[in-house]
């Protein structure tokens, strides 16, 4: 199933919204720069930068899913053992 709208129609509808969101991001980074203290060592900044790179990568399919994973804790198949839970199958 796909969108009933053409790419042109989507862009027409969302251009100003995308522009506004980019401006909001730019203003947020300006605000960080103007504020006292150094935030550049904060690990969250690295996640934000990874997210921005994904958004700008035209060759990346499913960008929303990929961005979600950037901001997610990893899953370990051995999570039960790591939590000390019995491996029970019923």
């Amino acid at each position, binding site marked *: *199933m796909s969108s*009933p709208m053409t790419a042109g129609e989507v862009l027409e509808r969302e251009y100003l919204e995308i522009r506004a969101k980019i401006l909001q991001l730019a203003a947020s980074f300006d605000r960080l720069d103007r504020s006292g203290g150094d935030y550049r060592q904060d690990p969250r900044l690295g996640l934000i930068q990874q997210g921005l790179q994904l958004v700008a990568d035209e060759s990346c399919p*499913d960008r929303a899913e990929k961005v*979600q994973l950037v901001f*997610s804790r*990893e899953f370990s198949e051995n999570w039960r053992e790591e939590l000390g839970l019995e491996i029970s*199958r019923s």
Partner: protein
Amino acid sequence: MYYIDPHIHMVSRTTDDYETLARMGCVALSEPAFWAGFDRGSVESFRDYFRQLTDFEKNRADQFGIQHFTWLCINAKEAENVELSRQVIEMIPEFLDLPGVLGIGEIGLNKNTRNESTIFMEHVDLAVHHDQQILIHTPHLEDKYQGTRMILDMLLSNDHVDPSRVLIDHVEEHTVEPVLAEGFWAGMTLYPISKCTPQRAADIIEMYGPDRLMVNSAGDWGPSKPTAVPDFIIEMRRRGHGEQLIRKVVYENPVEFFQQSKGFVFEPPELPEAKTIET
């Protein structure tokens, strides 16, 4: 368009909200048991809460022609108190045969801990033992992917769980595929900041189709919008999607899922658009 909100915490909302929901076309809703914003101190607190869900809230909804259904459990946020959780689990069967009770929920994980996992599995055993449907909360933000995978792992390791009778809620772009692929139902919660927007929910419908997918407001005492489902309806219409597709997501799918519970005695509104499926 008539619609059903399959996940909303009306005990936290005003009577004015019921009126607004009725004006927007909401004909039924289901209310999972939830965290009160603070940890309750005793099993009697939960007994009173379950009375509120199964009695008082149903009557409040009835005043506006909205049919109220509910789910019972102790929320994952309170599962760190294992002793209290087990007392609540032992008490829940007192309420399971009351009208409008759909099953066990919203159980799940919050910070993906050992105690949360233990209580989650004991809730699942309770549901299986009493032939109940299950409604599941998946964690927020950075914990969602890991927690959803843990939940799937626990459900799939229990041979007595029927995925077609389980709704896994708050799915987003990175969790919807594994949930649907294993045969479970999936809910998308329309919280703009911490979960999904109406636009992204519409994207997910376009990518995965409408089968076994629902949308809900999960309106509660925090920042949330009880009329979020109509926002999704409008977004779908603005994109040019047909009324039949939209109705399947916001009305027919909840009815199809809920009617697997014996507590779902539903009277469809008397308009042709609402009578497209037999109940």
